[in-house]
């Protein structure tokens, strides 16, 4: 049970006042996005940015979803949504599988070259992606993977590897050695120990990894832009194209509806996962 401090002194009033003003600051953009998306254009031009819509309408949401133009086509942001799901599902699965296996091998088996691999992964977690872009584009076009669905999935797996390996390695390093020793006495080898002992025990960290990767890959812009190709542009790229390539009068309500739609998946993950989300960031942040 948490005990609240009793009584309302001036100091406590000040605390609550500051917290409320801060809460307003953090909520303001979401509130403005929401009400703008529910207004018609005349009301946006004449009315007040902060005023709730006089006659709420979801017309802008429908247009944003199914018929907003990206400069090339007018099929709405739904194209990007489907692309993002198509990219995300295999990328999340592959990056977590690769990270779990690598983290497991590094944490328990002291393989040759392990120190080199671990050091490299740690360094890559900080290096700006711009350093890798040109060579990876060249390598991909050499093997015909540029601007393709497999290409973008591989890129997400490769650049998700550092963080995924680090969190799994740290988690597995905390599992009691006796357990593994006992399993080895029973004749279990590398793969049996991984499948029958480590993975079942790793459920909490797998949840954390899923949260991290789903939001991270959904929110990615630069890899999608460079590696996915026009056919597979993820939702963030489509959104930016819709907003920044619009010709003539800009439809702020449609733009904000499209923005809200793009934010919906990570926001849902965030509100469902609650404190797990924080745990995820902390696990990814504490490197080494």
């Amino acid at each position, binding site marked *: 049970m948490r005990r609240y401090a009793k009584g309302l002194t001036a100091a406590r009033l000040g605390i609550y006042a500051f917290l409320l003003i801060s809460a307003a600051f953090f909520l303001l953009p979401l509130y403005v996005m929401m009400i703008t998306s529910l207004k018609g254009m005349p009301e946006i*031009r004449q009315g007040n940015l902060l005023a709730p819509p006089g006659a709420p309408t979801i017309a802008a949401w429908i247009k944003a979803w199914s018929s907003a133009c990206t400069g090339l086509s007018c099929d709405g942001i739904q194209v990007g949504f489907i692309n993002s799901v198509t990219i995300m599902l295999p990328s999340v699965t592959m990056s977590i599988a690769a990270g779990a296996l690598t983290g497991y091998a590094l944490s328990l*088996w002291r393989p040759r*070259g392990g120190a080199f691999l671990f050091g490299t992964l740690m360094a890559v977690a900080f290096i700006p992606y711009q350093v*890798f*872009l040109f*060579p990876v584009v060249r390598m991909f076009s050499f093997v015909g993977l540029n601007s393709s669905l497999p290409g973008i999935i591989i890129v997400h797996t490769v650049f998700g590897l550092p963080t995924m390996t680090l969190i799994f390695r740290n988690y597995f390093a905390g599992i009691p050695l006796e357990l593994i020793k006992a399993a080895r006495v029973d004749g279990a080898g590398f793969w049996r120990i991984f499948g029958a002992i480590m993975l079942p025990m790793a459920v909490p960290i797998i949840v954390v990894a899923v949260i991290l990767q789903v939001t991270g890959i959904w*929110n990615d812009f630069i890899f999608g832009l460079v590696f996915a190709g026009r056919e597979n542009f993820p939702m*963030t790229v489509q959104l930016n194209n819709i907003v920044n390539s619009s010709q003539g009068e800009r439809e702020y309500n449609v733009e904000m509806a499209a923005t809200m739609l793009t934010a919906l998946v990570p926001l849902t993950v965030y509100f469902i996962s609650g404190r797990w989300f924080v745990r995820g960031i902390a696990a990814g942040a504490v490197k080494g």
Partner: protein
Amino acid sequence: MAAGSRLAAQTALIPAMLIALVVYCGSTAWTIWVYMTSSRMLPTNNFVGLRQYEILFANERWLVSAQNLAVFGVLFIALALALGFFLAVLIDQRIRSEDLLRSIFLYPFSMSFIVTGLAWRWLLDPTLGIAKIAHEIGFEGVQFDWLVRQDRVIYTLVAAGIWHASGLVMAIMLSGLRGIDQEIWKATRIDGIPAWRTYIFVVIPMLKGSFATATILMATTVVRLYDLTVAMTNGGPGIASEVPAKFVMDNLFERQNIGLATAAATSMLITVVAIVAPLLYAQNRAAARASR
């Protein structure tokens, strides 16, 4: 048996090893090599040493980008650390609705920089955004047009960045505060030391590790800063809000100047190493001391 398992472990690491060698190390070396050639649209092996570097640092667009990154980085990290720490301290005062407030402060971090940038661009729209409200309620003299002013636009990016990341700092600091021994509070209270002095002279030094973690996380965001600029200002007005990551992207894919792009990328790499290495060292030392 053991030898078989060891072999299996070594085999399981082959993909990660290949990625580390070919993609990470190979790409970095390749980028540094291209930077020392005269490559423009296509890579050549014509070695020119550090000439690209000289061209880069005579390039106004790059100098503006680098300066913007410095201004953004310092203001964004300092202000987000201050606001995040302050919010964590307030939340730690046994307040009501703690969970709700935490969720409100942290939700922006779950959203992409594209979404963040577009939301703030609309909010700060010089004709229909907050500017319009300010004019209607009588702030005629005050201009809320920073988004389109060359000398102010970088501060709008800072504002959006703070909105995005302060909740993260708050979460990191709060878990640090909750880990502090309650005896310290009792001891300082008995000695009659005011709470604010305890925070500054006792608590903040104890949270060195949390500050290092938050700073490292934000520093990597700063260097990678690209999406936010693209969505919010696209580098404009003019070149006033260009950033290094965008400079690399533009020269790679639009301006077809690979040599210059890789020179810029190499400079970014050197900057990151120079900034992150000491921070990591500090964080590891703080962790080592804590575990002793």
